C-alpha cells in the first residue's frame, strides 16, 4: 500500500458506516418514540384522554434503581422478555408479552442485561411476591429459594434490639433456623437502600398493552 489518504479514508469510512447504519438509523427510526395509549383511534393517533404508557417511575423506586445498578444486579438478571415462540420467556411467566422499544423510552439508563444466572426481572413486580418476600430473599436467598447462588445482601439490613414498646413495623421475618437469623430480642430491619431496592423491584411490571405489543405476543 502506497496511498495513505486511501487507507485513512477506509479506516474512517468503515466505522462511520456501522455507526450510521446501526446507531444513527435506530435513533432516526425510534429515538423520538413517545408514550401512547394501549389502542389507537381510527386515525392511528393515541386515544384522547386515554392513559399513556409506559408511565415514568418516580420517587423511592428511582432511588432503588441506583442501588440495583451499583450492586450490579444486572449481571445476573435481564430485563427483557423475548417474543413468544423464541425461547421460553413467556411460558416461564417472565412477562405477559414481549418487551418492545417503547417500554424503555422513559428510562434514564436501560438495563436490558445479557445474562440469566437468575430469572428475568422485567415483570418481577407483576408476580405475587410481597415486599417481605423480597426482603427475606435479599437478606438470605436460601430462605425463599433453597439452592440459589444469589449473593446475600445482608449488608443492606440492620440488626437491632427490639424496642420494649414493640417491634419495628419494617422488621423482616427471618425464620430462626437460618444462618444470620436474629437472636431472641433482636430484629432485622431494612436500611433505606434495601427499602428503595424493593420498591424498585415492585415497580417493574409489564401490565399494560401497547399498540405494537399485545398480551401473549
Amino acid at each position, binding site marked *: 500500500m*502506497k*496511498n495513505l489518504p486511501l487507507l485513512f479514508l477506509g479506516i474512517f469510512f468503515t466505522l462511520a458506516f456501522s455507526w450510521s447504519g446501526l446507531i444513527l*438509523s435506530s435513533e432516526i*427510526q425510534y429515538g*423520538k418514540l413517545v408514550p401512547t395509549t394501549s389502542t389507537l383511534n381510527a386515525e392511528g393517533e393515541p386515544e384522547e384522554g386515554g392513559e399513556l404508557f409506559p408511565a415514568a417511575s418516580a420517587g423511592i423506586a428511582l432511588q432503588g434503581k441506583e442501588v440495583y445498578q451499583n450492586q450490579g444486579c444486572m449481571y445476573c438478571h435481564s430485563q427483557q422478555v423475548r417474543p413468544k415462540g423464541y425461547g421460553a420467556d413467556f411460558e416461564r411467566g417472565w412477562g405477559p408479552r414481549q418487551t418492545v422499544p417503547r417500554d424503555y423510552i422513559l428510562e434514564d439508563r436501560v438495563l436490558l442485561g445479557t445474562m440469566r444466572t437468575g430469572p428475568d426481572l422485567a415483570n418481577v413486580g407483576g408476580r405475587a411476591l410481597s415486599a417481605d418476600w423480597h426482603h427475606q430473599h435479599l437478606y438470605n436467598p436460601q430462605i425463599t429459594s433453597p439452592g440459589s447462588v444469589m449473593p446475600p445482601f445482608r449488608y443492606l439490613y440492620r440488626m437491632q434490639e427490639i424496642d420494649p414498646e414493640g417491634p419495628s413495623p419494617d422488621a423482616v421475618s427471618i425464620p430462626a433456623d437460618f444462618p444470620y437469623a436474629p437472636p431472641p430480642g433482636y430484629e432485622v430491619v431494612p436500611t433505606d437502600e434495601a427499602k428503595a431496592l424493593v420498591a424498585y423491584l415492585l415497580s417493574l411490571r409489564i401490565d399494560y398493552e401497547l399498540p405494537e405489543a399485545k398480551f401473549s405476543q
Partner: protein
Amino acid sequence: MYTASALVTVVIIVACLIFVSAVYALYWASRHGQLERFEEGAKSIFTEEEPEGRPLDAFPDKEKPRPPWPPEEETRS
C-alpha cells in the same frame, strides 16, 4: 417517523454506493501501480539486523538458532 422498510431501502442504496466506490478504488489502485510488486511488501519486516531466513527466538535454556539458517545447500535449489 421513518418506517423500517424505508430505512432498509436507504441502507441498500448506501451499500450499493459503497460497493461501487470499492470497485472504483480497486480499479484506481491497479491503474496507479498500487498493486505492483505487491508480495514484496511482505518482506519489509526484515532488516539488516534481523534478516530474512533467520529464526529469532528459542527458550532461554535451549541453544539459539545460529545463522545460516536454513543450511545453505537447502535454500539454493
